[in-house]
């Protein structure tokens, strides 16, 4: 253990905070979790925040006069403020709680989109989008008569910006993922946001794969909307958020309606509440919002700069070691090197289908994802029926990469690759 690089030593300590990583798998192995792009594991601190909420001050919020209702309301709104600070929003009112990034995108497509898109307008996305940042825009385009266009990517999954201005001509919205969940590509946001704004388009960023992994400043980037899922950033399932510029959110009609998002209601007429509550209908996911607040505390404690540096280092190490499998027919996809990508590596090994690879790795306690990663059109464009994907987070170490390599060697042997 003395040979551990200092950053890896920190990750090993981090590992101890995650109960699921302390327990052996059913086959007696330690769990090597390389699927954080799908969902992250949860530190004890987040689990404890949930338990504390339910054991000590569970109550419905906003209208309760009694003590535990006040505590719950305070903790819930403080969690919102934590999120706002984490992405550097100007005000907590710019953070709307949703179930996940998908719901946040749907909120914008229904509330803002149906009002602002007209025949002849364009919505621009990229060829990298996750279905969640694609299907809502397909339907919006269909319902409004707007056109949906795509910024292309090259064979490495890197954005091709040659025709950017032409693509953005007539666009009302640029909707794009900050980081590709399939290839790890980091979008050149400064350039894209600038071009979109010059073309008169708003920018919605799908931050599902960026916000968990490095510091994202919505004001420095001048984003109009950003959608994020809590479960990918150490938070509980069932909570996510939409960031929206105050003036935009204020002008938007409500989406889901019902209790809590109203100001006053008569049988035939309703006045709506202020933002952010205007968009939060019904009883909120109080516990999980508070849990996400605890996750953000944990990430802040680690420092997002360390998180990013650790992932770059680990990704570089993995890319380096994967070369050993080149002679077995390993193909690694995505941008060249570790710097222009997040901690995500998609690959295929010889003619082994990604699902078979994942099954074999599973017997060694290694969790990777296999398939289309909810980016079917990208897979089609690239000509890959499926890929295997390993993705890293704060609790992964070089030992995890070593286990991956070893298990891939074993799979190659089982499949008798060269």
């Amino acid at each position, binding site marked *: 253990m003395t040979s551990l690089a200092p950053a890896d030593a920190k990750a090993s300590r981090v590992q101890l905070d995650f109960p699921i990583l302390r327990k052996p798998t059913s086959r007696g192995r330690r769990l090597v979790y390389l699927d954080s792009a799908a969902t992250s594991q949860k530190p004890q601190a987040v689990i404890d925040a949930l338990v504390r909420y339910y054991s000590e001050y569970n109550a419905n919020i906003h*209208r309760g*006069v009694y*003590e535990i*209702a*006040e505590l719950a*309301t305070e903790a819930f709104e403080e969690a919102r403020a934590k999120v706002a600070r984490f992405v550097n929003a100007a005000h907590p009112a710019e953070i709307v709680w949703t179930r996940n990034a998908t719901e946040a995108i749907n909120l914008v497509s229904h509330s803002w989109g149906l009002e602002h898109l007209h025949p002849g307008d364009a919505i621009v996305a990229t060829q990298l989008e996750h279905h969640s940042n694609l299907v809502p825009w397909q339907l919006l385009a269909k319902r409004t008569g707007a056109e949906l266009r795509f910024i292309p990517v090259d064979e490495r999954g890197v954005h091709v910006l040659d025709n950017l201005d032409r693509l953005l001509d007539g666009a009302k919205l640029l909707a794009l993922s900050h980081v590709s969940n399939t290839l790890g590509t980091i979008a050149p946001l400064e350039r894209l946001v600038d071009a979109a704004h010059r073309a008169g388009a708003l920018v919605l960023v799908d931050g599902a794969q960026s916000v968990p992994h490095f510091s994202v400043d919505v004001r420095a980037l001048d984003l109009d909307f950003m959608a994020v899922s809590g479960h990918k950033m150490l938070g509980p399932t069932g909570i996510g958020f939409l960031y929206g510029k105050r003036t935009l959110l204020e002008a938007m009609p409500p989406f889901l309606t019902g209790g809590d998002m109203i*100001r*006053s209601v008569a049988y035939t007429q309703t006045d709506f509440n202020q933002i952010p509550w205007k968009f939060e209908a019904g009883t909120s996911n109080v516990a999980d919002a508070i849990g996400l607040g605890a996750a953000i505390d944990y990430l802040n404690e680690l420092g997002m700069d360390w998180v990013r540096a650790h992932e770059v280092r680990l990704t570089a190490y993995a890319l380096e070691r994967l070369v050993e499998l080149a002679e077995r027919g390993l193909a690694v996809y995505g941008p060249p090197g570790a710097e222009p990508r997040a901690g995500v590596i998609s690959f295929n090994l010889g003619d082994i289908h990604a699902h078979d690879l994942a099954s074999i790795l599973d017997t060694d306690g290694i969790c990777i994802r296999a398939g289309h990663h909810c980016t079917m059109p990208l897979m089609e464009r690239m000509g890959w029926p499926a890929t295997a994907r390993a993705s890293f987070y704060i609790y992964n170490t070089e030992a995890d990469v070593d286990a991956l390599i070893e298990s891939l060697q074993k799979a190659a042997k089982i499949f008798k690759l060269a």
Partner: protein
Amino acid sequence: MDDFYKEYILDHYRQPRNFGSLEGATAVAEDLNPLCGDRIRFEFKVDPNGVVEDVRFSGRGCAISQASASMLSETLRGMKLADVARLDKQTVLDNVGIGISPARLKCVMLGLKVAKSAALGEIAGWPEEEQST
């Protein structure tokens, strides 16, 4: 919180001062607390020097919001409108005399919020050189 319901609070709740509406009011505002449904309306008559000549409030709600508005109404008469616009929370807290829980703070402050917004609304209509008086 039960200490809060002193004799003088209940007195203001049951016999609110300056309750009703004002013929020829020049500054008016109304608001409600959407969480509990409390409503307060303030009406001022302002003299040419920008001083509150007369004041009435109306509304409905809990003892805290109504007593606090009633006490505030007594403070406001004779004040310069510009000073009404600058009133801070402490004035109201001094009026009601005792700390209250965060959930009920909105009730205490509802009257103040309405009175200030009536004052600000009126001032906004003045010629610019007078707005800062």
